């Protein structure tokens, strides 16, 4: 079985803070990580590798420094890695991003394509299903658990708002995975050492199977018209008092609001 996993390097948003005075983002010094849902997707692929000897190729789109997440994927156990990088990819919205990734995946053999459900820096959850459409693959999103019959059929448990759903689908197909689907493995020492010897294949727009007009800013139907900070809402009253007095203030507010 051949598996392609799409991963993204994202800023660790749990580390992002607001400037208390200006209300703007402080981005400096924020570390980059492998997007958590994508890591869940990679773990799923590696579990299939452990059980069924699958070959796992990871692919990411981004600047040269995105190579870091590919090295991390090698250290976890991925077999091959592709970095999609080209100025022609720049300014891509989700549709143009999915076109680039689908264009690269078309050059590969695959039985299963895996993406994370969504990236923590955008939360759109769009790129996975869009890739599936471009490749004419059935999709199963919000994957919590996957069982493989060893031949052709996947039985997949997917999360819904109020429970779960179990579906069946044959390969080839695309799944989008939740970070909570599994516990991603750590990089091994051997893996880390080996990770730097493995080659990362770098692909530009000329190497992938897609029309260039569908890439980057040009291939993006959506455009940002303007970006603005929300402006800090004027703060209410802040009390620095002892516990007893604090309780008193809260109680009187609860009474005022007819909650007690």
């Amino acid at each position, binding site marked *: 079985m051949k598996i392609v996993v799409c991963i993204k390097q994202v800023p660790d948003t749990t580390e992002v803070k607001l400037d208390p005075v200006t209300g703007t983002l402080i981005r400096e010094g924020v570390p980059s990580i492998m997007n958590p849902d994508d890591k869940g997707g990679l773990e799923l692929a590696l579990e299939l590798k452990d059980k069924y000897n699958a070959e796992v190729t990871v692919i990411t789109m981004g600047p040269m420094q995105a190579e870091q997440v590919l090295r991390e994927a090698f250290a976890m156990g991925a077999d091959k890695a592709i970095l999609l990088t080209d100025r022609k990819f720049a300014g891509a919205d989700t549709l143009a991003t999915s076109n680039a990734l689908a264009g690269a995946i078309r050059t590969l053999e695959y039985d299963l394509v895996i993406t994370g459900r969504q990236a923590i820096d955008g939360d759109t959850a769009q790129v996975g299903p869009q890739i599936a459409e471009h490749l004419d693959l059935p999709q199963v999103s919000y994957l919590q658990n996957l069982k493989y019959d060893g031949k052709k059929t996947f039985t997949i448990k997917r999360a819904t708002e109020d429970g779960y759903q179990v579906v069946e689908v044959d390969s080839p197909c695309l799944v989008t995975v939740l970070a909570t689907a599994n516990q991603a493995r750590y990089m091994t020492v051997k893996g880390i050492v080996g990770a730097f010897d493995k080659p990362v294949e770098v692909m530009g727009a000329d190497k992938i199977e897609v029309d260039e007009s569908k890439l980057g800013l040009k291939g993006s139907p*959506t455009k940002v018209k303007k970006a603005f900070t929300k402006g800090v809402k004027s703060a209410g009253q*802040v009390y620095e008092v002892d516990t007893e007095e604090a309780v008193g203030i809260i109680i009187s507010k609860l009474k005022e609001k007819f909650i007690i």
Partner: protein
Amino acid sequence: MNRSEYKNVFVFAEQREGEIQGVAFELLGKARDLAKDLQEEVYAILLGGQDVEAKAQSLIAYGADKVIVASCPFLQDYTTEAYAQAITQIVTDYKPSIILLGATVIGRDLGPRLSARLTTGLTADCTRLEISEEKELLMTRPAFGGNLMATIVCSDHRPQMSTVRPGVMKSMDKDQTREGIIEKIKINFDESKFKVKIIETVKEQTSMVDITEAKVLLCGGRGIGTDQGFGNLQELAALMNAEVAASRAIVDAGLIGHERQVGQTGKTVRPDLYIGFGISGAIQHMAGMEESEFIVAINKDRYAPIMQMADLGIVGDVRQIIPALTQRLKSMKK
């Protein structure tokens, strides 16, 4: 593409087990505003099984001028491909200018599939929708975390598509006297593309609470600390007839289920009263609660970001304040 051929504001009226989801009514409310500015009409798309037509009237009562109904066994339970085929046919036949979908599990599965099939833009999780002077849809959403907002347009492609989370828009009051047209259509399916088979759909009891419905919400964050701290918060909530919610940190720590998470990857809430206990106010969290009517923040850090948003801020240790507040409420009830 001739943009002027595309007219009217369409809402995907999501149903599950035959019940139209609240977000569909909320979207109809917003669609009415947009259609008014465009001087166009509001259409609802209702897909489902045999009896789904019976629900069409309620969509009119909540603001639809026309309901397009496709009922067929293939549409009874949501599957990506059958729904994508149905809506693609509707878009081809009706040429909508705008399609709004709920940012639910179904909407977030269907929306991107459609956008790729129709080669058009889709803006996720919009918090504001309005019509520009050029009659374009301005779609505003939180960018990178939430404090930065981005207004997005889809100028050269139609339909303009957005998803909106449940609870973000307000539905209009139900008006049983509103009149509208119900139009039944037949979808020509390509069944050879139906490859995902539903084995079972299970509802779980634990997920039944809906914190978006709560009037009073007590929300615990990292400052709560332990199991014990969270237990104390639950006891306090019970005394106040409030619901308990949590930040991502608490959910990730396994203290409470994801269905009670507030924030960008959780739920958007707007209770009458929100009290944050040990919540510092990560931007992702604030994106999910900033529309609350009244916000109280209790935190050790005077300069925690949430203090700037709170109507009332208390600088203090929640591990002391929660038990003291509980004690006081108990003695008042005696």
